[in-house]
């Protein structure tokens, strides 16, 4: 029983980390705790979470997806370019384009046996070119009409809560269900933990990896769509500087970069930790010169706290 409690405690470390950060900031600036502000902070975090949510599957395999930033930018361009002509179909096409990027990553990793680090980096480059092509090398504005007609689900409010938060929570629920209730989710964990044994059990591991990359692509695509909705435009650089924070929030949440251990809610908490640190610095009034330094240090410390070393033998 005490083992179980320890396990539970270990699992909750990221949550405690988040609480400590929130309370720390609140102690300095109580306005941070106002419900409206908390909802805003959460809403602002959701695009980061969406991007990281799918990539969590890939990282749990022990692989990595570095194409998510380029994929998100690309889908924003496709959405913005197509909305005026095709309306809601544009949403589906943009999402499908994200999924297609995942398909490509999966194929390259599986069939050419190229490490995902390089494969997805390269696919990211290709997606950037697609984004330039789709956008005709410009930022494309989304008109208010199109926005209210097709993107209200992402940017409006429902019962006083920003829709981004609702989308984020739906994704959190859906992906958590996939990860913990389905056979696929279990196999993702198994592959990350001991790939050879899964192969020897007759599982088509390539299919698992492939699906994980597709989910990652789809979620990055969704992140791009929501981003486009929020910012009212699509641009080949819309999601730039998102990649490393997204990977960071997966790891900060306690998912092992070596694979096998992790969950979507941890990524959710990780994204909130990253956001709270960043926004918290603005709240506390940390000078902008020190912000990057503080952010870097907090990142390392947060991982030092949240990572579960009992399940990882060799730290690389």
């Amino acid at each position, binding site marked *: 029983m005490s083992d179980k409690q320890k396990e539970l405690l270990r699992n909750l470390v990221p949550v405690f980390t988040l609480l400590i950060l929130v309370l720390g900031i609140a102690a300095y600036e109580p306005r941070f705790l106002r419900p409206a502000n908390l909802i805003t902070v959460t809403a602002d975090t959701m695009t980061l979470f969406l991007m990281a949510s799918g990539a969590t599957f890939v990282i749990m395999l022990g692989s990595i997806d570095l194409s998510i930033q380029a994929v998100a930018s690309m889908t924003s361009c496709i959405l913005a370019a197509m909305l005026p002509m095709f309306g809601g179909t544009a949403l589906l096409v943009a999402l499908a384009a994200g999924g297609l990027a995942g398909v490509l990553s999966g194929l390259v990793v599986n069939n050419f046996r190229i490490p995902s680090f390089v494969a997805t980096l390269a696919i990211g480059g290709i997606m950037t070119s697609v984004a330039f092509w789709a956008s005709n090398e410009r930022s494309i504005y989304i008109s208010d009409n199109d926005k209210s007609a097709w993107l209200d689900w992402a940017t409006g409010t429902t019962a006083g809560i920003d829709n981004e938060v609702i989308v984020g929570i739906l994704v959190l629920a859906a992906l958590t269900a996939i990860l913990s209730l389905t*056979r696929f989710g279990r196999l993702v964990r198994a592959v990350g933990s001991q790939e*050879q*044994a899964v192969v020897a*059990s007759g599982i088509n591991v390539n299919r698992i990896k492939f699906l994980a990359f597709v989910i990652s692509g789809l979620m990055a695509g969704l992140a791009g769509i929501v981003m486009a909705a929020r910012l009212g435009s699509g641009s080949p650089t819309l999601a730039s500087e998102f990649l490393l924070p997204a990977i960071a929030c997966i790891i900060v949440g306690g998912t092992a970069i070596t694979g096998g251990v992790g969950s979507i809610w941890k990524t959710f908490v990780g994204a909130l930790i990253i956001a709270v640190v960043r926004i918290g610095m603005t709240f506390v009034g940390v000078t902008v010169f020190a912000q990057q330094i503080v952010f870097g240090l907090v990142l390392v410390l947060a991982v030092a706290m949240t990572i579960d070393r009992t399940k990882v033998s060799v730290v690389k």
Partner: protein
Amino acid sequence: MESILELESVTKEFPGVRALDSVSMHVDRNEVVGLIGENGAGKSTLVKILAGIHRIDAGTMKFGGEQASFRSPRDAFDRGLTMVFQEQSIIQTLTVAENIFLGREREFLRFGIIDKRAMNAAAKVELAKVHLDCDPATKCANLDFAARQMVEIAKALSLDGRIDSDIVILLDEPTSVLERREIDLLFEIIKELKNKASIIFISHRLDEVLQVSDRVYVLRDGAVVHETASKDATITGLHEHMVGRQLDHRYYRENKQRQSLGKPVLSIRNLSIDGEFRNLSFDLSEGEILGIAGVVGSGREAFARCLGGLLPPSGGEILIDGRAVRLNHPHQAVNAGFGFVPSERKSEGIVIGLSVSENMTLAAGKRFSKFGFISFERERAECQRWIDRLRIRTPSTKTPMQSLSGGNQQKVVLSKWQIFGSKVAVLDHPTRGIDVGAKEDVYELIREMAEQGVAIILLGDTLEEVIGLSNVILVLKDGEVSARFEAPVGAKPDQIDLISKMV
């Protein structure tokens, strides 16, 4: 004679298992001591204590007359106790010379730079001691298994002349991968070594142990049960001490061996893998247990892995229920009806990060899910049934796999294929490294599987196991079938007969 190494009432416990129970033994200067015992008898625990990987719980260890407790294999090595591991400790990406002096490059340093010429020259000296004629600058990945083994022995011998104290070399199953002439050479080397060092020789080949050693200890269930001078011992005598009884038919549940077999399931026709085995053909029926005997390198491991879909065949046919099947990938093998229990349990048998039930249903997952969603209750119930039936010691179905003992882990692996419903179980050393009680449970399960009509291909840990369990035995030698023995209850072939066909 003076004792170099002395163990006095050494006890070592692991959760739930007393691995060593008050073991006392000594090794004298310039002596070769044989150490034998079945798997699970405590040999590997003893080795790990000597190597400084485990600490002893009670008792004393003296080395060179002084109380000793090694902190690490390196510590033991530096003080003169060196071992050649069963699982090789050669780093393949380094050269021969670098492996021999790994961690001890200091003597070749000139202003922080390794003097490679000096190191290679010194390595050459050590290699000469094992009569291995190869370039010390060769990468170890380019050597074959036997040569790497010799490099390991050379590494152990490099202590000679570098430290003042006596040297004890522990050879853990050194002959298992060697060919006959290499074994002969090794024994000659051991004879030469006796002038410089003491040797502990661990092997399951009793004839070799008697041939090379001066004295023999027999371990069983974690205790020394017998000690004798080699010249006074016989193979059968040692064997009986090892298993603790006269050959007992009940041990292998021979009474449950099926007399009448079901319909034919598997036909193998001229199956080959280049460089491993050639033209293997046989038929297997429901409930039949086919034992495969052969030394390492005979091709039997490759054959087992081939049926597991892990090594694609280069020629021949495999028919299940009369239909040809392709085995280029494990999932093809599994869907064809093969259930492969690998010898490397930790890396290929179980997924350490998953729970007991998740491991059990790893292969049969589809049966426990609807539209991809897992039916947890159905899964739990089924797994609980198997846990009860196989007497798997686990607090619950959700227990992480890593907290189970080796024997219980192996039962989980076996149940994985039972749950899946494999027609042909391919068991590659199913009792490797598990304790005696669990072994009997495994034997019981094998008989049950046969009773239910599963055809079984067995690569046993010991010859005795193969003989005891099988209906029929194929002996492989250099990749070809050298003999076939029928093994009906009451008319089992003799170990000697098999060995004569193996080597």
